């Protein structure tokens, strides 16, 4: 079996995988990082979104071997020094989750949006989250959370200047 090596949440990891192993299977079953969820397993729901080399991808629609040498960030890699990432904090404060199953994907997808566009409109947030489904239909508070996180991150960026 091939050996795959990548950096996950800042730490170099490697493991033997069958070529057909999905990236999400490697993360969950190989590394025990079960924060990344498998919802539909058909590239539609976005529960499995992680970042690979800075781009959000559906980890159920990528092979682990395709991530050879890549920098991977999962939901477990967001909180720094014991404090929640502004997106996590905003979902907490704005009741951006009901059952919570879609939350890791919602946050990892929104993270790329806010990296590209620090001040999105509500319509832009809704459009961006096209590939993320919430089975509780809690979209209003999810969008509210992303907008609150964007404002918090802009405030933090200004304070740092």
């Amino acid at each position, binding site marked *: 079996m*091939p050996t795959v090596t990548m950096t996950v949440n800042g730490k170099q990891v490697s493991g033997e995988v*069958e*070529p*057909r192993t*999905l990236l999400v299977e490697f993360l969950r079953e190989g590394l025990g990082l079960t924060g990344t969820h498998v919802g539909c*397993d*058909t*590239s*539609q729901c*976005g529960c499995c*979104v992680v970042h690979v080399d800075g*781009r*959000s*991808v*559906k980890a159920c*629609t*990528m*092979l682990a*071997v*395709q991530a*050879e040498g890549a920098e991977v960030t999962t939901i477990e890699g967001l909180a720094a020094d014991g404090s929640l990432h502004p997106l996590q904090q905003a979902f907490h404060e704005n009741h951006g989750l009901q059952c919570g199953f879609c939350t890791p994907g919602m946050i990892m*997808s929104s993270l*790329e*949006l806010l990296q590209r566009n620090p001040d999105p409109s509500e319509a832009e947030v809704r459009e*961006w989250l*096209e*590939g*993320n489904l919430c089975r509780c239909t809690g979209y209003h508070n999810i969008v509210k959370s992303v907008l609150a996180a964007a404002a918090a991150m802009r405030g933090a960026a200004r304070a740092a200047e």
Partner: protein
Amino acid sequence: MYNFTYHRPRTLAEVAQLLSANEDAKLLAGGQTFIPTLKQRLAQPSDLVDLSGIAELKGIREEGGGLTIGATTTHAEVAGSELVRRLLPALADLAESIGDPQVRNLGTLGGSISNNDPAADYPAGLVGLGATVRTSKREIGAEDFFTGMFETALEEDEIVTAVHFPKPEKAAYAKFPNPASRYAIVGVFVARTGGGVRVAVTGAAPCVFRATELENALAADFSPAALDGVSVPADGLNEDIHASAEYRAHLVKVMAKRAVAAAG
């Protein structure tokens, strides 16, 4: 998913070698259609040849006043490119309308056109702009490239390397997306070029086609109103749970009018 042997070659020569040595090998580009296909066990390749490590297949550059886009360039890269925005904004808009952000981050131009899904967006862009597909063996005009449902002129061991798009005078793409998948129920790419008006339709039929009645009307008068008196026949159009053939025929005209209006 059935198991397979995985390869990530660095050159096109290695790809050719792998394909000729393994009869049941398949190419992997962005994988956004192919990996779901493998998961459903609808394909059983012996070998997967991943094209992502081949530098010469990537990138966007200006060429002869138009654009040349490498086969493994992603939809997100096309949508986000300053060069595409400046020279061919209609193509950037088309790329931006594909799937969702995560699909656009991995899905590629070459993968999309080689698969030739009847509801994919890029085939309309290529035929509408009169693009040329460059392969490892030859150049193929877009209309000759797309030969039928999920079928192209590509031979077994032939690889798309790039697509060249000439710059039109004006162009736009309008699509009526399936609300769940964002695939086109009907998508219409309209371009006015030095050689005339081109109207390419995707989603409506088993394969992308040029709507010649609409082209003739627009050649005389490039305005949405010019299409008022033209009717699009429903014969041979797709019919499924999403839309009847008659509804698709209606949408072809509506989307064409929207595209003409957007092209300005």
